[in-house]
């Protein structure tokens, strides 16, 4: 279609001909995409198009029906539980709700993965946690409880937690959803900066077109279970494809229909109530 | 979230209280004695009839409880009942010629084993058996004996009466 995403870089995540169904519903159908190392790559699409499913497949929480999922050359569905856990230590994930542990303070939440997986001394651990919190600008909030945080702050704490073990990649599940414009701007800035300063790869799942286009190097558009458009944000803005246009412009009707399938309108009205 | 120390204190108190309750139940409510816990030894005795003796029935000496009945089995060759008894370790100086009898507590109460000490120099040890035993008194047999005795007495008197004539 347009330029390939990799260019000169190799891909950290490679997905080939992925097929995934839940029960009888086919969610992903012959999906293929590459996530190049060191970039911020976005996967956009309407609600329920299967974006979060892709993240879960990369993280090994679910297995595909057929197809390949490779992370850093390792085939994720074939890993044993222990190997999977080892791989996950190198992946960070930011959930839509932050998913902070509600009975731990902000400090303890960020310290959690460090405590679980390393034997760092308390003094060293404290320094690391404070540095991570400083990166997201919340060092002063370290003694607050998650219930005392706003949505944006909670997500920032979760971000600090996901970089605690210096992963090679971070997956962001709808990081902008439900935030006010200022908080959106903060998160966007953080995603971009962290990607650069830590030298990691970021995968952003979103349906917030303006914000996502600002920060991504490359984007995929998901629809009907497979890729219906891809390219740099600039390329997508200029695309002629109907699918891409409807999504990028936010048109209410187009290839993705406005109306839920229903019978004849007049007939429905004329019928007596059952 | 409580502080670490307060938390551990409460949990420690809780567990200690629970164990104390268990101990209170065992010793004050139940009949556990420290001797039950260690040193108990087993002896056996054979009876023609154990009557209503049940497992866990008490074994007394001079009216003081010294043990309990552990097991009751039938000796198929001698057609007698074998009673296994568990005696407190404190009372380990029962002479070997002591006797074990099955007695009834009160007139119609539960049955238990009473030990009469003998005079031998050696003491009963774990695994040994009582040589002298007295079986339970079966009420029907007792009544039958009394009636039989009365009947023969009357018979004698009437015979004597006849004889005198």
């Amino acid at each position: 279609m347009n330029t390939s995403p990799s260019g000169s870089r190799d891909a950290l995540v490679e997905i080939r001909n992925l097929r995934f169904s839940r029960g009888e519903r086919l969610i992903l159908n012959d999906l293929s995409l590459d996530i190049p190392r060191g970039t911020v790559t976005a996967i956009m699409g309407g609600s329920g198009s299967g974006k979060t499913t892709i993240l879960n497949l990369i993280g090994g929480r679910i297995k595909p029906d057929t197809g390949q999922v490779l992370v850093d050359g390792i085939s994720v569905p074939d890993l044993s539980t222990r190997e999977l856990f080892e791989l996950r230590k190198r992946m960070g994930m930011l959930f839509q709700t932050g998913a902070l542990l509600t009975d731990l303070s902000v400090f303890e939440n960020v310290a959690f993965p460090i405590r679980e997986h390393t034997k760092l001394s308390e003094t060293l651990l404290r320094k690391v946690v404070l540095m991570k919190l400083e990166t997201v600008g919340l060092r002063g909030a370290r003694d607050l409880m998650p219930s005392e945080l706003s949505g944006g702050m909670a997500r920032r704490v979760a971000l600090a937690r996901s970089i605690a073990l210096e992963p090679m990649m971070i997956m962001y599940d709808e990081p902008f959803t439900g935030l006010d414009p200022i908080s959106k701007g903060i998160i966007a800035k953080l995603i971009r900066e962290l990607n650069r300063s830590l030298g990691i790869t970021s995968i952003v799942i979103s349906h917030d077109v303006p914000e996502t286009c600002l920060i991504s190097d490359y984007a995929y558009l998901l629809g009907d279970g497979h890729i219906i458009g891809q390219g740099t944000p600039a390329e997508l803005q200029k695309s002629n494809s109907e699918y891409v246009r409807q999504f990028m412009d936010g048109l209410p009707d187009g290839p993705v229909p406005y109306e839920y399938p229903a019978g004849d309108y007049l007939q429905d009205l004329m019928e007596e109530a059952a | 979230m409580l502080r670490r120390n307060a938390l551990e204190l409460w949990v420690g108190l809780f567990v200690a209280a629970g164990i104390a309750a268990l101990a209170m139940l065992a010793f004050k409510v139940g009949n556990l004695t420290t001797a039950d816990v260690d040193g108990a030894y087993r002896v056996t005795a054979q009876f023609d009839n154990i009557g209503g003796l049940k497992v866990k029935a008490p074994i007394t000496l001079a009216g003081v409880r010294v043990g309990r009945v552990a097991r009751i089995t039938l000796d198929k060759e001698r057609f007698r009942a074998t009673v296994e008894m568990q005696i407190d370790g404190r009372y380990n100086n029962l002479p070997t010629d002591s006797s074990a009898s099955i007695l009834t507590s009160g007139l119609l109460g539960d049955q238990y084993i009473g030990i009469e000490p003998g005079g031998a120099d050696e003491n009963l040890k774990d695994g040994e058996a009582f040589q002298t035993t007295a079986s339970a008194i079966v009420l029907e047999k007792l009544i039958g004996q009394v009636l039989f005795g009365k009947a023969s007495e009357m018979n004698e008197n009437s015979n004597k009466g006849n004889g005198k004539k």
Partner: protein
Amino acid sequence: MNGMVRTLGRVVVEGIERLGRAGLFIFDVVRGTAELRSRFGLVVQQIYAVGVLTLLIILVSGLFVGMVLGLQGYNTLVKFGSANSLGLLVALSLVRELGPVVTALLFAGRAGSALTAEIGLMKATEQLAGMEMMAVNPITRVIAPRFIAGVVAMPLLAALFSAIGVLGGHLVGVGLLGVDAGPFWSQMQAGVDFYGDIMNGVIKSTVFGLVCSGIAVFEGYDAVPTSEGVARATNRTVVYSSLAVLGLDFVLTALTLGEV
């Protein structure tokens, strides 16, 4: 008619599927407990949440149950001239049956439902998923400590219930109704057997602990991650735990009395 039969079949199949999931889950939990030797602090924390916080309701209920036993028992025994056996009656009723069973029912209602709600909410707010993605096994970190805490706390709570119940019976019988304190305790001590009655009660309450904790953590873990789903799961915990306790009580009692 056809519809009803099919519904029945579906319910049974779903029920068996659930049972299978529960079995596998419990197996994972037990395996997880083995790894807890180095994380004892987690278990201590949960024993507090599950044991210490249930203590108040257990002690108050135990006291009242004991006192009622004293009243009711006296009322009946005195008609046969056996008021002196009141201590024996109260102690046996508590140690053999009421202690383990009532404690288990109260536990299921208070601690069991709290466990289910907590775990269900953690599932609904993606905290369990978050842990998985941080390469921390939520079964070892979250579920297993709560399970063990329940199993450990239950016999202790039952013993406390029985102990305070006996004291309650004493309070009413000897204190209020004038039963002689001497025979109250001596008949009790003569009649309550450590192995047969007290250990039996301990075994019962341990089994109940396994069952109630198991059901509580499973229902929480298996809950539909919405607020309605968690509410239904909590309901299921209380109902299933209570039924299981009462059913098992019959089975265990029959086994130990050796009559069946």
